[in-house]
């Protein structure tokens, strides 16, 4: 299992989701993607994206004026 850290601070929609999708393309099932963003839309957008792609939205927390969003990659085909 690998953790992919993605720093999207300073970017607004669709910056964080673009960064998330680009990281997801390189990830394997079981990997964690930790996305840090200060765009408030990043949390609901990431949740919606996880629901649609069957990946797991592990959670989000506030970290130094930003949101740290953790996603477990579970949706990729075997």
């Amino acid at each position, binding site marked *: 299992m690998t953790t992919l850290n993605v720093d999207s601070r300073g*970017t607004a929609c669709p910056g964080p989701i673009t960064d998330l999708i*680009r990281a997801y393309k390189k990830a394997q099932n079981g990997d964690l993607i930790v996305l840090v963003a200060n765009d408030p*839309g990043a949390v609901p957008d990431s949740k919606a994206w996880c629901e649609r792609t069957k990946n797991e939205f592990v959670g989000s927390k506030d970290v130094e004026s930003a949101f740290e969003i953790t996603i477990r990659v579970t949706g*990729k*085909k075997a």
Partner: protein
Amino acid sequence: MKNIAIIGSGAGGLITSSKLAKDLSKEIKNGEVTITLFDKKREQEFQPGYLEVAFRGTDPSKIRRPVKKLVSSGVKMIYDNVEKVDLADRYVKTEGSSEKINYDYIIISTGSSPDYDQIDGLKQANMDFHTDAYNASLIYNRISSIKSGKIVVGIGGLPYKCPPSPNESAFMLDEYFRKKGIRDDVEIVYITPFTRIYSAESINEVIEPMYERRDIESITAFNTDTVDDEKKEITSLEGETLKYDYLFLTPPHKPAGFLKGSDMSDEDGWVKVDKKDLHITTYDNGFAIGDTTNIPISKAGVEAHLEGVVVANNIAAEITGTEQKIKFTGRTQCSMETGFHKATFVVGTYDRPVEKIEPSTMNYMEKKVMEKIYWGSLHGHYEWLFKYHFKKDYFEK
């Protein structure tokens, strides 16, 4: 003597070189400054015109001009591609040459191009309107023969240039087949890896109802993984499949090859720059503009233009010591044609989210005006107009 090197003769490189040539005309005349533009291309194309070529049958030659007519007086053109930039020792080398060409300032504006290697099977199956005008013209030849079937358009991968263009292709295909009277026989499906039809919510609110009214199907959160042209089938990263008869996807894009693996670039080759003054991280005399950068905003001509104005102004200010330095505001101004002579615009800055702008004929006319003034704008002829139009977003003091 100060030597300024500009890599790439697209919109960004040309606008930057023309502003530098104007602002430093006295120094150039006195032999104190040289401006050199590097690019192998002998012709440039008006890239937003690819949609007109692909979906309205515009002759590709109408959106093409010889580079020699676009280079401003005072700028030396070298028709070679650069394959090495040494930021530490301040020199470049062109393809196949061992000669070191020294510079004092460098601006990298090498753009982006389709990267078919990212998606297995896409090259064989797809026709795109992002590679060049000729390839776009092949789409018009193809749609002219379509009597019925399922066309899939949309975003094949990230990043890509001209964010609204995949949506525009759906609207323009709808217009084309409605005018032809066979729209009921042609299914149009739009796919996107984002969770909305347009990634910015404000624009999505405008166009989502239009998709419903125009009977354009949309599939969101679809991450294209592979394409099988024999089966006429796209498979997503999640294992979903989608059948098609005709495929006009926007492919993911890549930067110029020499940037990948360079210490100035991120892992995909996009040059890491300060998003406001565009200097390459850790190198104050090196800059990158336009699609080349890793700035998370639209890869579109307006960004290259406004970033070029900032970089040219600041280099000229440093050389002459006369002007104030300025910053890029992150302003976007991407037109999105919605068909039938209407368009909206994707407008925002670093500090202002994308506005909700309803499609109108006036917006469409504004888009058409830009087409008319494009070639002159590369020489800097219309900066007064852009300055008036963008107002405080033109640059930040």
